[in-house]
């Protein structure tokens, strides 16, 4: 099934100058589908509801990924397609209308409803955009109804967030005429991180500043030809394209992970606003200093140790860059479900020469490579973590990197600690 042999040929290694060649694999992928993004997106957009149109598998996946249960009634659900629905598509649309009507009656506080496509709904070609348009007419102006696909046949894990945010872009209001440049930060971040960034950009004099997604749906940010945007996450290819179609311009930068990443990310905006070097330094120096001090706590544990990334969230390249440059770790293989050359250009330049990059996955072959390399730390998904631990390999399960605030100066120490903890734990346990 694989298009490349198990042992990486010498030519397929990062050259540390953005010219990396890549080991591409095809086979079993041990990753989540895009539906999983609902778990953090529904916490972020507080008046939104996510209705997956899919199978019992979809419902079970989200429930399992969400750590089984959440105390409050969740703002996500699945409209489970059954046998009768598969008999005729006309009925399916009527059924969907019935389910949505019942849902919105039950939850009058919902202002934004996403109909989320799944593998089954894609395969039977259920047109959710038509359904969304039809239902929007019935429920406007109280509820806005949009659609995107989180199906596993089209999206890998974090691409679900990309698809969701891309579906919001046409809904964004146009920026006011002759308003001057504005900055849009794109990608779901924890509220606490947003607040920190807001203060930093404020001190730099960069703004007006908006975030996508907003915390509440009426606060959709304006967009237009004077909008400059910074990606806060590396997995937002479709969203970036949609914003560019609305005239906005992407500011190229590494991602805001670690002291260096955060500084370079802020600097991309500061330069666009013509912020003087001295002011930039004055505003960012305290944060950089705090970040370096916080990271230092984990340095002893991580310095010089090898790390192996299984593909998961597309955060792998920025994380490998952070671990190698700020903690002196040695990335053996950096696997990612998808490498966006353009958005990762600034990151790839900073990776140590010779790092093996792999794109896609054949999990069995990758496990062979991992076992052969015996890294100090393996970053992988929940399906692999305990089995690898049982084989004696220390692991960091990667989903935590999505659920924990890790961006910005004041989270850099937490980010380093996430990687140090499994190793520290091994040192402590004697029995």
């Amino acid at each position, binding site marked *: *099934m694989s298009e490349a042999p198990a042992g990486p040929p010498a030519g397929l290694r990062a050259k540390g100058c953005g010219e990396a060649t890549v080991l591409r694999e095809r*086979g*079993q*992928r*041990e*990753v*989540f*589908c*895009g*539906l*999983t993004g609902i778990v953090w997106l529904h916490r972020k957009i507080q008046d939104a509801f996510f209705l997956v149109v899919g*199978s*019992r*598998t979809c*419902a*079970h*996946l989200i*429930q*399992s*990924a969400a750590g*089984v*249960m959440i*105390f409050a*009634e*969740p703002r996500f*659900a*699945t*409209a*489970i*397609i*059954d*046998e009768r*629905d*598969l008999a005729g598509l006309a009925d*399916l649309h009527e*059924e969907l209308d*019935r*389910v949505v009507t*019942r*849902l919105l009656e039950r939850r009058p506080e919902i202002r934004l409803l996403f109909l989320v496509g799944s*593998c*089954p709904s*894609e*395969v*039977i070609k259920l047109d959710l955009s038509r359904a969304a348009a039809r239902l929007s007419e019935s429920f406007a102006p109280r509820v806005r109804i949009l659609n995107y696909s989180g*199906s*596993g*046949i*089209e999206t*890998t894990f974090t691409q679900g967030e990309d698809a969701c945010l891309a579906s919001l872009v046409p809904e964004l209001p146009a920026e006011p005429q002759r308003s001057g440049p504005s900055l849009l930060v794109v990608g779901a971040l924890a509220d606490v991180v947003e607040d920190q960034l807001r203060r930093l950009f404020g001190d730099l004099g960069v703004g007006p500043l908006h975030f996508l997604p907003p915390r509440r749906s009426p606060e959709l940010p304006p967009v237009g030809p004077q909008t400059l945007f910074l990606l806060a996450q590396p997995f937002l290819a479709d969203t970036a394209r949609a914003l560019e179609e609305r005239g906005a311009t992407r500011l190229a930068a590494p991602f805001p992970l670690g002291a260096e990443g955060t500084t370079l990310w802020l600097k991309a905006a500061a330069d666009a606003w013509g912020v003087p070097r001295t002011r930039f330094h004055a505003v960012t120096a305290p944060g950089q200093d705090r970040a370096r001090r916080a990271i230092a706590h984990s340095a002893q544990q991580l310095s010089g140790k090898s790390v192996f990334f299984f593909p998961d969230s597309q955060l792998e390249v920025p994380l490998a860059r952070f671990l190698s440059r700020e903690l002196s770790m040695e990335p053996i293989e950096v696997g990612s479900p998808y490498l966006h050359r353009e958005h990762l250009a600034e990151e790839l330049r900073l990776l140590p020469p010779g790092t093996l990059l792999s794109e896609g996955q054949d999990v*069995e072959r990758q496990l062979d490579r991992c076992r052969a390399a015996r890294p100090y730390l393996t970053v992988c*998904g*929940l*399906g*692999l*973590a*305990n*089995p690898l*631990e*049982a084989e004696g390999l220390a692991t960091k399960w990667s989903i935590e990197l999505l659920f924990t605030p890790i961006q910005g100066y004041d989270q850099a120490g937490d980010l380093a600690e996430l990687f140090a903890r499994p190793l520290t734990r091994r040192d402590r346990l004697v029995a």
Partner: protein
Amino acid sequence: MQLTLWTYEAPPHVGAMRIATAMNGLHYVLHAPQGDTYADLLFTMIERLDRRPPVTYSTFQARDLGGDTAQLFQTAVKEAYERFRPEAILVGASCTAELIQDDPGGLARALALPVPVIPLELPAYQRKENWGASETFYRLVRALAGPQAPPPGEKRPGRKAATAPSCNILGPTALGFRHRDDVFEVTRLLERLGVEVHRVAPLGARPGDIARLGDADFNVVLYPEVAETAARWLERSFGQPWTKTVPIGVGATRDFIAEVAALADLDPTPLLSGQDCRLPWYSRSVDSNYFTGKRVFIFGDATHALAAARIADQELGFKVVGLGTYSREFARSLREAAKGYGVEALITDDYLEVEARVAELQPELVLGTQMERHIAKRLGIGCAVISSPVHVQDFPARYSPQMGFEGANVIFDTWVHPLVMGLEEHLLAMFRDDFEFHDGAIPSHLGVSTAEGDERRTTLPSAALSETSAVTWEEDAEEELRKVPFFVRGKARRNTERFALDQGLAIISIETLYDAKAHFGR
């Protein structure tokens, strides 16, 4: 199309995974898109397995749909065989692959592998996890043991006089609710009775063990949800009788011993006269007086719900006020049992319906799944978990079976801990106006301490009730009601309203409150 917030059961292919993962030397190749591998984490994270489930996913993508997904599946089967060298292979489709109709069975057979290939047809839009486990186990048993079956009509040879009677234990799977410990406990029970355990399946079995199932004298069916279909086929094909009693609870364990003794032609008296269970004495000890008539709501898979109802009613002296299951396949036996307790059975897989019933019934204890644990927490009611769907907490490090006499001990402890017990209940009533015992202060064991939790606990159930009743409370009657200890206040309110309705009263006064109390007793 059904609106689902939470689902009690996974899709049927996860049931098949529970069989495959329970066994050794078996591999399951699943035609499935990317993302379906999430199911691996059920085993590695919830059950904390130290190995990956023996499952290979074909991982097709949208761009493959126009091309050759069948080829992709064949490659996956071939590579899985070469890498893992299993003794038998299960093949099947998940929900999405079912729609593209690639015929995994035919494709795998065409590879002419040197091991048995067992195709599974698990209709994902119709059936669920337990059915999938049952069907998979049945197909596996039929395919592997079938060739050993005697010709139809041939009588089973009698057991040789010198050999001990033997049985198989059928039903325990991966990701089962306490299956690991139940097997240990039941094996011990059978051995003490003088029955030899021939094979346990699927848990820990190899394909070769499945092929030898017919050699035992009879079968012990631990979990009918998983093993009844296979046991019926073994009965038809090998003339093996099977046990109908599930040994959960003291009474059921004794019945089970008697049933097995009859099948094995052994004397159950020595084992039955043993005093190795504490539940009966603990239940008779004076502190347990306070269990009398405790209103309990029960919901789970059919096996565990039925067993829980019997224990609650006969062994702990609770009152069963609600009984239900999400196992539609077993609705009939559950309805019959419910009739015996004078309640209407709740057969549903809709979590919201279960929640509404609990709010309406106001039980003092909920025995349910992890989902009911959340319902109970929200309503401020004590809860013990008795059944799947499982949670990491349902795989305790210590030995904690549900079956047999030790299982009954475990159940006694598990169910009693969430209750406000004996003297503690008295003291709470005595000091209820004390600043630390005010209504909002919840017993710490209920695990709710936030103000929000208090608010919900005290208002939600009564509000839900009052909406449904046509009576109103006078202010001083409402005031008097507040003097009733909070943990029985819901019940007092409910009884008073019911009494008022029965008497045709539109308004409840203090008099009505005490008249109702006199009418209902405590």
